[in-house]
């Protein structure tokens, strides 16, 4: 087990992503951040705080649970459903930024797009992730990436956040 990102590196990456999102979306009032529970939701909240600082106004932040849209439900024990909370502006016609911790196969994001499609029709959907570890199984890419970490398929990438784990770090772990 080794550390791939330290707490200061994570903090810097989130600030950078916040700037990049604002640059790519000049009308920041149209932005809605949707974090994918559990850790993506915390990241969305942090990014939202930064963006409010930089933009000088509130940024719409919510969560989007994708459990019921997963395509691997039969392969795992049932997971608890996490809250979905869509900011009052909704998603219709908005610039939606999906936020997740680690981009891997892309299946989570596909589920998120399905879940989002049930709620409404954003003008555009973009994706921000803290870590892109490769090994995509679907034609999905991130618009904003904190750090690309090349990994072996047998490794696992774990993000720890102070909100849950009392420390900020990204750990790389060998499975066998």
């Amino acid at each position, binding site marked *: 087990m080794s550390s791939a990102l330290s707490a200061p590196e994570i903090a810097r990456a989130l600030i950078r992503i916040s700037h990049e999102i604002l640059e790519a979306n000049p009308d920041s009032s149209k932005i809605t951040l949707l974090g994918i529970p559990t850790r993506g939701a915390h990241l969305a909240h942090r990014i939202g705080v930064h963006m409010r600082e930089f933009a000088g106004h509130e940024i719409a932040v919510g969560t989007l*649970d994708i459990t*019921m*849209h997963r395509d691997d*439900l*039969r*392969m*795992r*024990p*049932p997971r*608890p*459903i*996490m*809250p*979905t909370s*869509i900011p009052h502006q909704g998603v219709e016609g908005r610039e939606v930024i999906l936020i997740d911790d680690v981009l891997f196969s892309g299946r989570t994001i596909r589920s998120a797009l*399905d879940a989002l499609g*049930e*709620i*409404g029709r954003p003008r555009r959907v973009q994706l921000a992730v803290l870590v892109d570890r490769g090994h995509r199984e679907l034609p999905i890419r991130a618009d904003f990436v904190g750090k690309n970490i090349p990994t072996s398929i047998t490794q696992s990438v774990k993000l720890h956040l102070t909100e849950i784990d009392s420390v900020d770090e990204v750990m790389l772990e060998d499975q066998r």
Partner: protein
Amino acid sequence: MRHLLSIADLSKTEAISILDTAVELARISDGTVKKLPTLRGRTIVNLFAEDSTRTRISFEAAAKRLSADVINFSAKGSSLSKGESLKDTALTLQAMGADAVVIRHGASGAPQRLADSEWMQGSVINAGDGTHEHPSQALLDAFTIRKHLGKGAPDLHGIKVAIVGDVLHSRVARSNVLLLNLLGAKVTLVAPPTLLPVGVDSWPVNISYNFDEVVASVDVVMMLRVQQERMTDLFFPNAREYSRYFGLNADRLSTMSPTSIVMHPGPMNRGLEISADVADSARSVIVEQVANGVSVRMAILYVLLAGQPLEVGGK
């Protein structure tokens, strides 16, 4: 968890997790999302050997909102009414590739027979068996109570519930006693002695023959349906007398605490166990129980079916 046959099979954690799942599902359903893809490709059979439109529709709506394929197999006009055995029915369902069977049956224990047999492999969900249990009803009742009186707690600790009426023949009462007790509520059964089973003293409940002594001190009054034919079986002298001692009317309602709620699993006999004005009063959550039923049954289907592996070789 593979089957839901009795509340006795649930741990407190499992029960709370079903309720929590139902909360999220209810929120999703309250929004614009009417349908989730979760159980796409799964086949759920509603096997109703006994008429019960409301329970069947509730399960059907729950299954369809999770995108499952639903097959309704009811008593009337089917082979069930022509004396086909439970075994043959089960073998048929197995051949059809049912992933789950929601069964309503007049014989106590029929769902367990189905689950324990080697006749079929899918999940069995008890939708009411004889005078035994009705677990999904108890879960939706607990969901409704928690929503109104739970004050954010995951369980029902300390909430006082009176279950009033024909406990002897009530599967709703049996499931509710088990679940309310599991979740920490305090249950008092109120009934004439004839409508309490021998052996009820072994249940984790208080017992009263006097509704008036109980009604003012509880948070929830749950009325049970009383069937007219109980009268001819000598359980009570007549409907008027039953109603006078054990019915919930406006007078009794007025003595209840202002935050308390009135429940009924339906269908109601207005004028017998509950008066019309009480059933329609602001204190009554009876209509809401029906709405909550769909979310809770979605949660049950999700918990039982979502984690099941695909059969090797497929169907």
